[in-house]
């Protein structure tokens, strides 16, 4: 079964680093970026997502580590 693409479903064209609530969905409890196996995100969106999360981390919106 093909996994869902969250960003296409929600019509998110550009993944913004300020959109913390969306980004949080793709973090593990340890605040690491979820693997594609877990999240089912296509490669293109995964790259954008990773960049957005890293930007959010730099500005203190998301943690680098947790627990």
């Amino acid at each position, binding site marked *: 079964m093909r996994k869902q693409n969250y960003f296409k479903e929600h019509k998110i064209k550009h993944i913004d680093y*300020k959109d913390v609530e969306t980004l949080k969905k793709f973090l593990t409890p340890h605040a690491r970026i979820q693997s594609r196996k877990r999240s089912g995100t296509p490669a293109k969106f995964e790259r954008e997502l990773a960049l957005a999360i890293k930007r959010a981390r730099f*500005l203190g919106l998301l943690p680098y580590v947790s627990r």
Partner: protein
Amino acid sequence: MANLESEAGELTVYELGFLVLPSIPEDKLSNVTDAVRKIISAAGGTEIDAEAPIKKTLAYSMSKTIGASRYVVSDAYLGWTKFEVDKANVPIIKAGVEKMEEILRFLLIKAPRETTFTFAKARTAMAIETTTSEDAEAEITPAKLSESIEK
């Protein structure tokens, strides 16, 4: 570097996200955003979109050294502005913002022209989500419950 010449004169859209120190009173935040705006316009940039800084709790504590004193903060005001500027003038903006004492940290990135996310939008979306979930809960309780009991 053959493409250096073609790069000059081209306008690119950038976004500057910045954290303002929480020690600055809320009514003086506009001074900080005005100062940022001045730096951008001095470098020949034109503003496309912006949002006033709002208070955010940081995910980890950051520090900023001003002179001899070091400030450790765990919350800050987050603001952003989107502008169009010549690629060659970006280092001027970067240097200008770096010199500002009120700015804790900033992020200067290339961005798409259209704004897809604002804090105001996110807040309304959150509000709608919570009200709909409350409605769903409320729908079950008074009238429907009595109906189901009658049946």
